[in-house]
């Protein structure tokens, strides 16, 4: 059996089928861990709740909206300013957050009146914003407030505003994933089709499952615009509320994160006949084939090819500089739901690293299927990992770097495994050709940190080298490189700027004949 039994989890046998080692002969029918099942209480799992999946992951990246949570203040506070989904309207959605501040008397007597007061106050505080999303929380779900009715009442009284309600309390499902599903379905049921699309091109897409982490959406948007494609809406990073109401007018749904947003794509196909095309903005090859697929769909393959040629010529020498230096390094891809399969394989192919483990906090079996298929033999795949299992895995696998969240990253740091933030990125964006080089650069900087090397020295026992006052990264990374690689004229370190997104916002695009 390929199941991997952790020593620390022997006492909870139900964990046994949640991890597998990918062996040489195993196929997916044998080597697929269980997924998306109830969390084992007290296991110190890393999962969040369905409220955060709906509000924090998918709802809040919408940029021109008052995001209000109906409940006690904590849900709002705790999910505020913990992500890096930026926008081109001065990050309103990052800066302002709203809570109805439900108190004991409201729990007893109901909080609907309070909610209405809140809605009115919020629109008054930000008179330029006319759109709102309301998120239910555990407390208001349990007392049974009719949020939809209050929202309708306000919309009847204030005709210039529009309100979306998402009923996804924290307990609704084993993880954040339950919330992704609920908000997808609520949006298509209640909002899609309520605004007529403004079509400006022959080629119109919805860009779905993209959250503009450090500007990912804007990088991809740049490619689409260079191809003359109109992005009718983005679900939801840097996305606009009214544009998302007109999703039904697109010719194609281009889907990035299939974990969090495939539901709405599937519904758009069923209800409006819009086809779904899964793409991948990470990595040169997957990105190039994604652009080509879209190009082929619209019959504008040449425009895609032009971008691919330009971008590859510009950035490939820089990617390869890092590939030479990252060859064989052991990495764990430990993200939330989908990046394990977005990154596995392509990171091996294009950066030369070895994927020794993948995990997913809230992914389903389908995510594992793709992830395991793409990672190297011998890799350990874990569903719904917990604190002790992650530690045991790191001690056993001895990775050179892991990609995970901020807090687990602190655990890794202490046992001298550097980490990169898989959710928010270190120095992103990581999508796009340049972004992929930035990712490689971050990995290189993490692994070849001279300070990191010093953390292995025990000055009370070991021989202190005392052979110089510094090391550069190159002095460490280039030790075993051939002269040819070290001095290659075809390779170069990353040459981009710190902020790659602001210039995109100033850019103008060629007109294509309709």
């Amino acid at each position, binding site marked *: 059996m390929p199941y991997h039994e952790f020593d*620390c*989890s022997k*006492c*909870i046998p139900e964990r046994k089928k949640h991890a597998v080692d990918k062996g040489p002969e195993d196929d997916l029918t044998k080597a697929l861990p269980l997924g998306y099942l109830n*969390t*084992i*209480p*007290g*296991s*110190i799992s890393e*999962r*969040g*709740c369905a*409220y*955060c999946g709906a509000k924090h992951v998918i709802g809040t990246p919408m940029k021109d909206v008052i995001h*209000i949570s109906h409940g*006690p*203040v*904590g*849900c709002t506070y*705790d*999910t*505020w300013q*913990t992500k890096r989904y930026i926008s081109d309207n001065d990050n309103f959605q990052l*800066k302002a957050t*709203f*809570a*109805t*501040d439900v*108190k*004991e008397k*409201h*729990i007893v007597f109901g909080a609907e009146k*309070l909610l209405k*007061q809140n809605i009115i*106050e*919020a629109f008054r*505080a930000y008179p330029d914003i006319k759109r709102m999303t309301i998120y239910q929380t*555990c*407390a208001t779900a*349990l*007392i049974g407030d009719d949020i939809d009715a209050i929202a309708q009442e306000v919309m009847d009284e204030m005709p210039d505003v529009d309100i979306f309600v998402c009923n996804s*309390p*924290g*307990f*609704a*499902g*084993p*993880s954040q994933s339950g919330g992704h599903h609920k908000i997808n379905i609520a949006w298509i049921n209640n909002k899609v089709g309520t605004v007529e699309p403004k079509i400006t091109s022959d080629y119109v897409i919805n860009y779905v499952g993209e959250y503009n982490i450090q500007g990912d959406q804007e990088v991809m948007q740049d490619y689409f615009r260079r191809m003359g494609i109109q992005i009718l809406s983005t679900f939801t990073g840097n996305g606009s509320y009214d544009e998302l109401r007109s999703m039904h007018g697109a010719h194609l749904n281009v889907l990035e994160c299939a974990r969090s947003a495939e539901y709405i794509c599937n519904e758009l196909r069923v209800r409006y006949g819009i086809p779904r095309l899964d793409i991948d903005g990470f990595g040169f090859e997957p990105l190039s084939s994604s652009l080509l697929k879209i190009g082929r769909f619209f019959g504008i393959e040449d425009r895609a090819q032009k971008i691919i040629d330009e971008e590859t010529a510009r950035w490939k020498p820089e990617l390869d500089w890092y590939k030479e230096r990252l060859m064989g390094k052991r990495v764990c891809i430990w993200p939330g739901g989908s990046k394990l399969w977005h990154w596995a394989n392509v990171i091996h192919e294009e950066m030369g690293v070895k994927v020794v483990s993948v995990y997913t906090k809230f992914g389903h079996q389908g995510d594992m299927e793709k992830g395991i298929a793409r990672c190297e033999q011998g890799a350990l795949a874990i569903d719904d990992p917990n604190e002790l299992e992650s*530690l045991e895995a790191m001690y056993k696998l001895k990775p050179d770097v892991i990609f995970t969240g*901020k*807090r*687990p990253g*602190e*655990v890794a740091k*202490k*046992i001298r495994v550097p980490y990169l933030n898989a959710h928010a990125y270190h120095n992103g964006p990581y999508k796009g050709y340049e972004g992929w080089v930035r990712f490689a650069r971050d990995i290189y900087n993490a692994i070849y940190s001279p300070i990191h090397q010093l*953390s292995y*020295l*025990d000055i009370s026992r070991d021989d202190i080298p005392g052979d110089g006052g510094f090391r550069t990264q190159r002095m460490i990374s280039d030790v075993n490189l051939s002269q040819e690689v070290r001095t290659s004229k075809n390779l170069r370190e990353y040459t981009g700027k710190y902020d790659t997104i602001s210039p995109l916002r100033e850019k103008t695009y060629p007109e294509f004949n309709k």
Partner: protein
Amino acid sequence: MNCELITKERAGVINPIFTCQPAGAQFASIGIKECIGIVHGGQGCVMFVRLLISQHLKESFEIASSSVHEDGAVFGALNRVEEAVDVLLMRYPDVKVIPIITTCSTEVIGDDIDGVVIKLQEELLNTKYAGREVHLIPIHCPSFVGSMIHGYDTAVRDFVKYFAEKGETNGKINLLTGWVNPGDVTALKHLLAEMQVDATVLFEIESFDSPLMPDGNHTSHGNTTIADLKDTANAIGTLALNKYEGAKAAQYLEKEFDIPTIIGPTPIGIRNTDTFLKNLKRMTGKPIPESLVRERGIALDAITDLAHMFLADKKVAIYGNPDLVIGLAEFCLDLEMKPKLLLLGDDNLSYAEDPRIKALQENVDYDMEIVMNADLWDLEGRIKDGLELDLILGHSKGRFVAIDYNIPMVRVGFPTYDRAGLYRHPVVGYAGAIWLAEEMANTLFADMEYKRNKEWVLNVW
């Protein structure tokens, strides 16, 4: 009267200053050694609070969830607590203390955690874990009451109440620090050491500024032990530095074990630190040593260089934990600054009775507003309406007010994730007074240079 005490008029919260009760209880729980709390509710109540505290301390630590899902919300979720306790005890053999912290959801559905604790004690602990020291402590934290401040205060009281046990007098004092940073604990312990006072520090979180060691040490934890907590009943006195964070525990010890108690003042600034030392002296009979006279002198010397030249008349807004806000306001006044706006982020009705607030109301001779149940919109809205400020003092969640309105800001309180290493620096004691005054001055200096606002003044300072 120039100093007005008002309550926010709006019903809702725009950009909150505090989170809810369970976060406070969780912060208290990580101060105890061999303790892993179980938060009884949805998983987000733990996952995000761990992230929040971890962002602030740049450390990791363990807190578990009972992972209440839909079935639990409908049918009751006590079985999840039972399973969580068992799983935790099986996998963490060193764990002895398990607070069970409720949340809004499990309070609304009415899960009887006190009952389940008795049941677990009788069944699970007496059979499967017979012979193992385990303490299950129910802590009620309905998120719709009070705030994280209230949750911290309640949890500290509940821990003390559970453990405190009368024995021989130990000659020590109990020092309840309130919600502070590792750097504050270091500064307080330093003052105690100079005074040669033996104290039980609750909670001993100095260790959260933890090292990266050659042998690997994967999580950080507090160092307050069960023995420390038991022994709180045998102290010669209790000093609770903060009225709203820890005073409940002090009052319990006073009532139950007749332990003399002094609550406050928060030792922020020279004057409040002097009072702290006076209280220590009063409680223990120990004299204030020459070394502290000298240390105080160093602080006065440093601050004199700054106060009347740079800090005087600077208009400040302050938000955050109530004792911190009041302490900072008092220190700012001593520095000749003008705190214009104080924001207290919850609806605690007793703020109006706080003698420190009353003293401000009686003595402040310019316009000052103190807003209760405040949010950060109370700051931003006033700035939009023309409130002029030279400086903001507050935690990182208000960073965009400072950024968008171009007002220099000193990060202070919890959380301060957008500045490096602040958890290491004290705001209490003479060391804290120096740090605060110099940090405020340096922040103003950087702002003068950035805005080209008489930046040449510093040529000859």
